[in-house]
């Protein structure tokens, strides 16, 4: 449904989006995850035709974003970040305005607007001015204008930002209820959000694709990296082969040193078993002085943070497994 190939966008010398490739299948909910400033909004703005790419192509429903911009926009619903709305209009008149601009069939007007206000629970504020509404309501008005006319593709930029937990759940439920009917691309910088609603996740950082997969896949793959920190008196070249004798370890790295002969190593191993005892035994049996041993377990959140902040520190074996 949405195919992004080799997409790049520069603002002056700043690379906002860097050779991005991904695809959103029909009826799927794809979560675009990344820290603030990762290029999520820029990517979405390109998809909606608000910005043009510096390089690369975007196809939506088989149409090219540059050539068929108007046609694409007529099958697209977009909720921009920060939900810009006309504050001096009432909810009802705003939705009517959007209805006309989207070029929908006039005779369905009443029904379409009723439907969307019902879906977004805006019934009681229909006659109120948008500028006087609370953040939660304004977010829902934003969502309502995107949903109006049941567009085939929905692009939602941080649909739950600034809401309270109850409202977040409501919006998530609403999005989940659209699954299968509409193709949805939503962005967020909160990890639980994507795992809660999306079928598949892509993680981007500094405009680059870092990882993609289903939330379970990602969690599983990321979780396989358990880390153990050991402080040993002994040279890296000698210690490393010794440690590799322990089953389950796939990488050992030197991360620092305390004295000339005391080094700190980081051990990456699978999460299936607890190998701390085994590591200690092997080291002592081989005649090394083991000064400290602790597990450096990362939560899913930590791993995400690590993935997007210091990508280069993630071991090569791990990135290879993740960035399929």
């Amino acid at each position, binding site marked *: 449904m949405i195919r992004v190939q080799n997409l790049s966008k*520069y*603002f*002056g010398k700043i690379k906002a989006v860097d050779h991005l490739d991904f695809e959103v299948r029909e009826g799927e909910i794809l979560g675009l995850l990344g820290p603030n400033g990762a290029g999520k909004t820029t990517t979405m*703005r390109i998809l*909606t*035709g*608000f*910005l*043009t790419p*510096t390089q690369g192509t975007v196809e939506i429903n088989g149409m090219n974003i540059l050539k068929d911009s*108007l*046609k694409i*926009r*007529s099958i*697209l619903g*977009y909720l*921009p970040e*920060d939900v*810009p*709305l*006309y*504050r*001096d*209009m009432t909810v009802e*008149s705003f939705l009517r*305005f*959007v209805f*006309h*601009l*989207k*070029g929908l069939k006039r005779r369905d007007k009443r029904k379409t607007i009723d439907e969307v206000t019902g879906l977004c629970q805006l019934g009681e504020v229909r006659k109120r001015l948008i500028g006087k509404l609370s953040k939660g309501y304004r977010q829902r008005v934003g969502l309502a*204008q995107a949903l109006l006319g049941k567009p085939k593709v929905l692009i939602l930029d941080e649909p739950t930002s600034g809401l309270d937990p109850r409202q977040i759940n409501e919006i998530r439920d609403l999005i989940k209820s659209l699954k299968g009917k509409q193709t949805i691309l939503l962005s967020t910088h909160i990890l639980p959000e994507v795992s809660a609603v999306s079928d598949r996740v892509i993680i981007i950082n500094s405009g680059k694709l870092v990882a993609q997969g289903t939330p379970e896949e990602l969690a599983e793959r990321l979780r396989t990296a358990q880390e153990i920190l050991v402080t040993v008196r002994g040279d890296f070249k000698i210690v490393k082969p010794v440690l590799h004798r322990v089953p389950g370890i796939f990488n050992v790295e030197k991360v620092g040193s305390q004295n000339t002969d005391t080094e700190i190593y980081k051990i990456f191993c699978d999460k299936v078993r607890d190998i701390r005892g085994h590591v200690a035994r092997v080291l002592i049996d081989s005649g090394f002085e083991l000064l400290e041993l602790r597990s450096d377990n990362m939560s899913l959140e930590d791993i995400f943070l690590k993935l997007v902040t210091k990508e280069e520190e993630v071991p090569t074996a791990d990135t290879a497994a993740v960035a399929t």
Partner: protein
Amino acid sequence: MSNILSIFSKDTKSYFFSMIAYAVIATFLVLSGFFFSSAVSYFSFYSFQLSAQPYLSAQGLNLTEAVIGNLFFNFSVVLLLMIPILTMRTLAEEQKQGTFELLLTYPVNEFQVVLGKFLAAFFVFTVMIAPTFLYLLILRKVGGDFEWGVVLSGFLGQVLLGVAFISFGVFASSLSENQLISAVLTFGFLLLLWIIAWLAEFLPPDASRWINGFSLTRHAEDFFKGIIELKHLVFYLLFTIFFLFLTVWRLQTRKWVR
């Protein structure tokens, strides 16, 4: 077409809802009413004095020339102050509030947006100058003798001037998300084109012809005297079309920003 209409009606409502339209219209009417009544007072004062002098009174003063022509000129000066206020928010506000992003991700093209907004400002402008027609009806009612032809041509000149002002105002509004900047730019540019004719008097004929060609005042003068000439009509229409297209171009190139 329906898109233009939607944007037109949304913007028109917003003018009235935000009270800008009322403020601008009321101010314009107070000022133009003042100009009108003082022009008529002066006229009647001098007519009265003249009637005491038998040699001159035979011919009398010409109301059309003395009042009507100047009146439209004075109205235009007030327009120069009011139009920037009317147009400053058209696109600047959309850019500032981010609603521009919303608007342009609907199946609407930039041309429709610009035209809809231009027409909305033009509508408010029409509502603003329409009541001045009443002034003249009142003048006629109390026995003023003037030519309707000059009045109509004066109104035509006024409308053309207004349309040109608005088109530049909308363009200036597309340049910045700050309304004040767009108002200052509009006022400065229009005033410059207004007074540029003063310079023409000191320049060699060739140069002054050029300068006069760009002067917004010079092109309006004939209309206010009751003369409708095609070249002036064409000047205002080209001026308007040029700035409207410049606005569309400006909005279209915005998304290619690098």
